[in-house]
């Protein structure tokens, strides 16, 4: 879009051409940062559910003064012709589409409506397992709830599963495919997605502008560059607790979630595993940052490869904190993978609770279970 934007600056300034955007992104507010960075000041409509049912982006349309599409994927000559033509009004006014309840509630019901939206879309899928749009939109709603205060631990994994079901029904729908790729392994990615965020912020700050805050900070897979082959980096670090002698966080003081993307493994294919750790606020738990970082160790089963066995999440400067800590790693499956496998992994961390005031060094086993597509 920046290309067209630059070419049409004068036309926009003279009022001869109105620019308008529609984005299907899961996190549409990131577009706001992008546009401020590129100095594109035109309105954007948000269509995260893809009500327009486009299957690929970008698409550019020239729409006349009566709302009729005159060109798709226009050339410079098309634009010139379009601006020089006075179009006649169509005979009929288009009917405004009637939205189903779940879609309407998603758009206009706010955060409070998400439980209803999830329930309604789930019901539609129960009635018709072939309703691929309901599957895609269920994934969008689940992921939105996952990013909210009303999150359920399983929302993200369920979203990935719903997107997977939708894509299995229509493998040519690239809007759906991008949702999985955004969070998935490097092997499947067409581009990094949000690697531009850091540069955008730095540029805005250098210009003396304030970058808009993002609802959800992109991380891990959303920055990772695509790769044509699976790269397994040998670790020079020895396994920290091979015999499992560190006491377990049995309380537990840390709430832990694991998400595998995609939800099922193509034999010979890769998955990206997202591990999330957050102190249990109900137990008044917090990280103890005065000792060491959070460590994760992954042991790939025979025949499997991990991109990196050892991970370290640097602690913030303050002595105590309660932030979310995340680790992402990728696993590459053997060609003959069938059924399911459990990948051993564990985290080591320093944690305190304010009830009795104790601080502990604990281990948390976070085995990841993977299922093959052939097992469905």
């Amino acid at each position, binding site marked *: 879009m920046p290309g067209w934007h630059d070419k049409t600056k004068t036309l926009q300034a003279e009022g001869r051409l109105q620019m308008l955007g*529609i984005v299907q992104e899961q996190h549409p507010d990131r577009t706001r940062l992008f546009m401020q960075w590129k100095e594109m000041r035109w309105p954007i409509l948000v269509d995260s559910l893809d009500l327009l049912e486009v299957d690929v982006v970008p698409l550019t349309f020239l729409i006349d003064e009566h709302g009729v599409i005159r060109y798709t994927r226009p050339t410079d000559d098309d634009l010139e012709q379009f601006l020089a033509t006075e179009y006649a009004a169509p005979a009929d006014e288009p009917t405004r589409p009637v939205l189903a309840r779940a879609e309407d509630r998603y758009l206009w019901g706010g955060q409070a409506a998400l439980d209803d939206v999830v329930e309604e879309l789930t019901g539609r899928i129960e009635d018709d397992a072939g309703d691929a749009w309901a599957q895609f939109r269920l994934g969008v709603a689940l992921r939105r709830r996952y990013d909210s205060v009303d999150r359920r631990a399983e929302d993200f994994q369920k979203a990935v599963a719903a997107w997977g079901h939708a894509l299995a029904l229509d493998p040519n729908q690239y809007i759906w495919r991008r949702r999985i790729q955004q969070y998935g392994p490097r092997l499947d990615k067409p581009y990094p997605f949000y690697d531009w965020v850091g540069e955008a912020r730095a540029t805005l700050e250098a210009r003396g502008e304030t970058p808009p805050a993002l609802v959800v900070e992109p991380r891990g897979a959303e920055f990772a560059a695509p790769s044509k082959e699976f790269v397994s980096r040998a670790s020079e670090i020895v396994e920290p607790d091979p015999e499992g002698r560190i006491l377990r966080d049995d309380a537990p003081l840390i709430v832990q979630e694991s998400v595998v993307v995609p939800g099922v493994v193509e034999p010979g294919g890769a998955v990206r595993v997202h591990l999330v750790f957050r102190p249990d606020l109900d137990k008044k738990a917090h990280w103890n940052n005065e000792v060491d970082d959070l460590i994760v160790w992954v042991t790939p089963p025979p025949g499997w490869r991990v991109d990196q066995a050892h991970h370290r999440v640097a602690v913030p400067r303050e002595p105590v904190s309660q932030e979310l800590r995340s680790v992402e790693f990728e696993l590459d499956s053997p060609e003959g993978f069938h059924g399911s496998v459990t990948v051993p992994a564990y985290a080591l961390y320093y944690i305190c609770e304010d009830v009795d005031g104790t601080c502990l060094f604990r281990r948390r086993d976070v085995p990841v279970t993977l299922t093959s597509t052939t097992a469905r």
Partner: protein
Amino acid sequence: MSRIALTVTLLGLFAATASGSELVVGRSFPTVELPSLADGSRASVKDYRGKKLMLHVWASW
């Protein structure tokens, strides 16, 4: 089929009709209301009637 049942069926069909296939030259662009990124208010392509519009369906990635 009763008239009510037919209406409900047609509404259902309309809601389920692929808009993607409607995005062709010579047809009106769908006027569905969507939240504006600026403030979440209801907005539609229809708000721009009377103007020559260049519409980008895109993503910031």
